Structures are given as structure tokens and as C-alpha cells.
């Protein structure tokens, strides 16, 4: 059984009188631990697909099974519970709460899950150490560099130990060097067993994924697994 199973998923937006097919009927299976890049031009439906995978959006038709459970029929609060425990999000613009410190931002999902403060602090401290942020724990997002901000965001996305990590252009707002660091971080998490699904414009980042999906005009154009002969580490230095 695949971890993620989409059957005939469809998403239609109405703009004025005309219906726009953001996603045409689409079937997709992703197994646990996969590393998938979703690529394609803007407006091709890749963000819509990611939102549907993350239960932020509801499809107009089709079935979505996450870990064998049909999640399309769940209520809003039940979906929230699934997002809380099984799914982690990383955004292009980090989406940190500006008035909270790095540690508090990381602890947000634990707080929403109602974890006691003492245990929360322990887990947050471990995450801060793991992501090399222990000296930035009490800094607000505005006092952090872009790379540090994204590391806080990744720490927050993984603190609940989700099964699936969804990243929407995680390096889009970062320079090349920090982008590579963040990519390496995400790949390390994937290597530890978390399913990683990345939406990206960047062909460099996309080519590192073990499975590449190419979207075009709301449809899956190509589902390609590159031969393992070209390992990501073998890329020439720029």
C-alpha cells in the first residue's frame, strides 16, 4: 500500500464565468520515504497539487488516501489533526510568526497539539541543537538571516515527526549557498525516512530528486525516475 494515493483528483477554480482546471483528473502514488520533486511552469498546477497533498485545499472530485485512510471525507478539524501529526510544511517565505522567538516558532505545533510546557521545552531544545540554532533560540525572525529563518521553519515542520514533508520552493528566497545548505538539510531528513515532496522552479534542485514529476496545464506530463548512475553528489562545482 502506497503512503499517498490520489485517484482522479480534480480541482476547478471559477474565475468570473469561466472554469479553470487547475488540476485535471490525476492519479498518483507515492511510497513512504520517497524524494519527489514537482516541477513545471507557473500556473501548471504544482502548488495546487501540493496544497491538496497537504490537506490545505479540498479537491472537487477524486479520492485521496493518506496512509490507507480516505482523508477527502474528513471534517475540517479532523483534517487539521492529520496536518498536525502527519504533515510538515516548509514555505518559500518561511512564514514565521514575527513576534515569537525562534524557539517559540518551533514549538508552535507542539503547543497546538496541547503538549505540556516542560516536555515541549525539551523537544524544542533538542530541535534547536539538531538544526544548529541553539544560540539563536531567543532571537525573533527579523534578527535571523534567511538561511536561519528557513532552518527554523524546517525545525518547526519536523518537530512533530511527520510522515510527509511538503516544501513549496524552499530555496526560492535564499541565495545559492544557503539554498544548497537547506536542500542538504531536507535531503538528510528524507534519508532518515521522511517522505519529501518539493515543488520547485529550480531545475538544479529538481534534478537532485529521485523522482521527478513534470506538471503542465494541470496535468501530469511526465513521471520520471532518473537512473541512479547520476548521483546528486557528482554535480560539478559551479
Amino acid at each position: 500500500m502506497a503512503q499517498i494515493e490520489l485517484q482522479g483528483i480534480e480541482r476547478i477554480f471559477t474565475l468570473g464565468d469561466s472554469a479553470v482546471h487547475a488540476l485535471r483528473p490525476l492519479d498518483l502514488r507515492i511510497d513512504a520515504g520517497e524524494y519527489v520533486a514537482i516541477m513545471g511552469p507557473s500556473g501548471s498546477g504544482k502548488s495546487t497539487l501540493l496544497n491538496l497533498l497537504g490537506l490545505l485545499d479540498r479537491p472537487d472530485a477524486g479520492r485521496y488516501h493518506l496512509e490507507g485512510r480516505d482523508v477527502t471525507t474528513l471534517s475540517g478539524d479532523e483534517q487539521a489533526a492529520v496536518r498536525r501529526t502527519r504533515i510538515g510544511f516548509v514555505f518559500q517565505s518561511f512564514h514565521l510568526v514575527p513576534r515569537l522567538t525562534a524557539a517559540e516558532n518551533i514549538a508552535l505545533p507542539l503547543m497546538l497539539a496541547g503538549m505540556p510546557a516542560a516536555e515541549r521545552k525539551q523537544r524544542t531544545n533538542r530541535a534547536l541543537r539538531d538544526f544548529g540554532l541553539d544560540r539563536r533560540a531567543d532571537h525573533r525572525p527579523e534578527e535571523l538571516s534567511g538561511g536561519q529563518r528557513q532552518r527554523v521553519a524546517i525545525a518547526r515542520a519536523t518537530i512533530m515527526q511527520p510522515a510527509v514533508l511538503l516544501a513549496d520552493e524552499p530555496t526560492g528566497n535564499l541565495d545559492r549557498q544557503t539554498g544548497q545548505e537547506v536542500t542538504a538539510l531536507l535531503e538528510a531528513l528524507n534519508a532518515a525516512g521522511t517522505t519529501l515532496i518539493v515543488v520547485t522552479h529550480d531545475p538544479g534542485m529538481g534534478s537532485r530528486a529521485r523522482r521527478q514529476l513534470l506538471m503542465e496545464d494541470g496535468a501530469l506530463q511526465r513521471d520520471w525516475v532518473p537512473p541512479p548512475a547520476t548521483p546528486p553528489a557528482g554535480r560539478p562545482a559551479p
Partner: protein
Amino acid sequence: MTPSDTFRFATRAALGYPLRTALMVLAMAIGVAAVVMLTALGDGARRYVVGEFASLGANLVIVLPGRNETGGVNAGSFVTSTPRDLTVNDAAALLRTPLVRRVAPLAVGNSEIAFGGKLRELMVLGTTADFLELRNYRMAQGQFLPREDFGRAGAVAVLGHKIRAELFGAEAAVGRMIRVGDARLRVIGVLDTAGQGLGMNSDELVIVPVATAQNMFNTNTLFRIMVEARSREALAPAQHQLEEILRARRDGELDVTLITQDAVLGTFDRILGALTFGVAGIAAISLAVAGILVMNVMLVAVTQRTGEIGLLKALGASGRDIRAAFLTEAALLSLAGALIGYGLGHLGAWAIRLAYPVLPAWPPDWAVIAALGTALGTGVSFGVLPARRAAGLDPVQALAKR
């Protein structure tokens, strides 16, 4: 999300936007302060008036000529038409009741008083010896009117405190002759200062025997008769007996009005209590305005923090979590405003007491509780709409907004 986390999150959110929070707290504070201060003023006035009447003495029945058709005592009871005079003989007859301790007939008019070339207008009060103790007045010098027959027009006068000071200054007043209207009277005493009561200022009064006053104003009728019962318990039976006597004296028709101290007090208590309520109601409007402001500000906050709400949803916050967070924030802001307003209101009441020491301007408990309750109530109820809007936001669109 646990309640304590919700509380902490809402506090941080409120403190995260200090100007907005300060303005909203101020608006709420002004509303609460207005209620506390205005009710303090209204209730102070009520207590002042009630206190004035209470100083009349508790077991008093006042007999007025004329009768109002409707029963009960209201503000109109004090204005009565006079089909038949109330006379000195009526007053004398009332003394026959064993339940009555003192009777003082009152005849009142305006006249001129003259001494040593000084002249002034003043109120002349014709009464009898019992009046002094009936009103709890004290003598500063000399003595009060002598105890004698009600019909005897003695040529003596008792001066109010201020009148004595104005006419005689440092000179001795007792024993001197003055002119009141056309009558020449000997000053036999001066009242101690006592202040206001029943529309008469005893400090600016000249008191003469009731027959002297009636001669002076060429009338037979009395302004009213004040009767003091032996005790508080005797008040109701005494009133009944007085009515019987008066009815018998006027061919079976009771064309006078009897008012007891209690009834007067109760009436003023009611009138001024209603006034306080009215004032509180007006002040409550500012609370409602503050409530609408809370809603406005919270709606702006929802718009401002759309991205944050979307993020919280993506992180797995349920609609209830978000609703609770925003409602708690609104409640916190209202509570802070209410408490500050409560302090400001008490400060204002204190200032009123400082400016007008006679006015016991303390806010009544019900007003304080109502103001704090309304502030919290409006804050929370006007916070519901923004909180629901926040909870209902579509996470995708909320996240897209930055």
C-alpha cells in the same frame, strides 16, 4: 491547545501591537470610567438629598392644605390646591392625640428686615416653640420662641445665623429691636448654623410666633403643619389619628395631604435612583461604542494576521483553537480597559468629592459590577464575529497573503 497556552498566545498577540492595544484599552477605559464617574455623581446626589431629608428627624408627618386626587406620594404631592384653609386651630387640635409629641404650625412669607439703616429681603417663618426641637436646630445665643398659646402674636423674633451677621456684625443682637415688614420685634435669640433643609435655609431666616406672621401677611391659613410622632412605630397610627381629627374638623372631608418622612425619602430615593440609572445608561452608550471599536480592531487584526492564521491552520490548528485565541485576545483587551477605566472612574469620583465635599460621590456597587460586566460582555460578544471570521479563513488563501 491548552487554555493556558491560548491565554499566553493571546497576551503575546495583544502586546505585539502596542499602539493598537493601547488605543483600544483606552476606548474601553473611557467607557467604564464614564459609567463609574457618572453613577458616582448621580448616587452622590441621591445620598445628599436623602441625607438632607433624614436630618429633618425621622418620625415626621407633614400636613399640607389641599388634596391630590391620586394616592401615594410623588413629586406633585408638594403642589396642592387649597379648597379650605389649614388653620392654627387645626394645629392645636392635633396636639390632642397621645401619639403626637410635638406640633409646629408653619406660616411662611417674604418680607423686609431692617435694623440700623440696613435693609434686606428675607423669608419670615411663623411657627411655635416646638419647631426648634422638631427640626433639631440649636441656639447660638439667647432663646427660641416662648411656649405660649398659638394665637398669641408676641413681638419677638429669632434670627438666622447669617442674618444676624449681616445686620449686627460684631454687635450683640439679643435684646435689640428690629423691624420686619411693618412690625417692630425684639430679638430674643440667634439660631446656630444648620444649613439647608426642606427648601429653607435656616441661616437666612427670621422666625416669629405664628400669629405674628399671620398678622404680618394678613392671612389665616398655614403653609403646613409639622407633626412629630412619639416613635417610629407610632408613625402610622399617628398619621391615621391625625387624618381622623382633621376629617372631623372639616365636615367629614379630608382636604389636606399628609406626607410622612418615609414617603418623602422614598420618593426622592426613587427619583434620584432613576436619574442615576439614566445617567448610567447614557454612559453605557460609550461602552457600546467601545465594544464596536473592539470589533473593528479585532477585524483589522484578523486581516493583518491573515498569513499567521493560515500558517496556524497549516500547522494543524483547529477552527476552535483560532476562535479561542482571538476571543481571548478581545476579552483580555476589554478586561484591561475595564480595570483601567475602573481606576480612572474612582479617580474621577475622588476628584468630584474633592471639588464638592458635600456630595458623597461614591459609585454604587451595582454600577461598578454592571460596568465591568458590560465591558467584558461587549468585548467578548463583539469579538465573536472577528474570531469566527478568522476561524473560517481558507488556509490556502490565508497563506498566500503576506
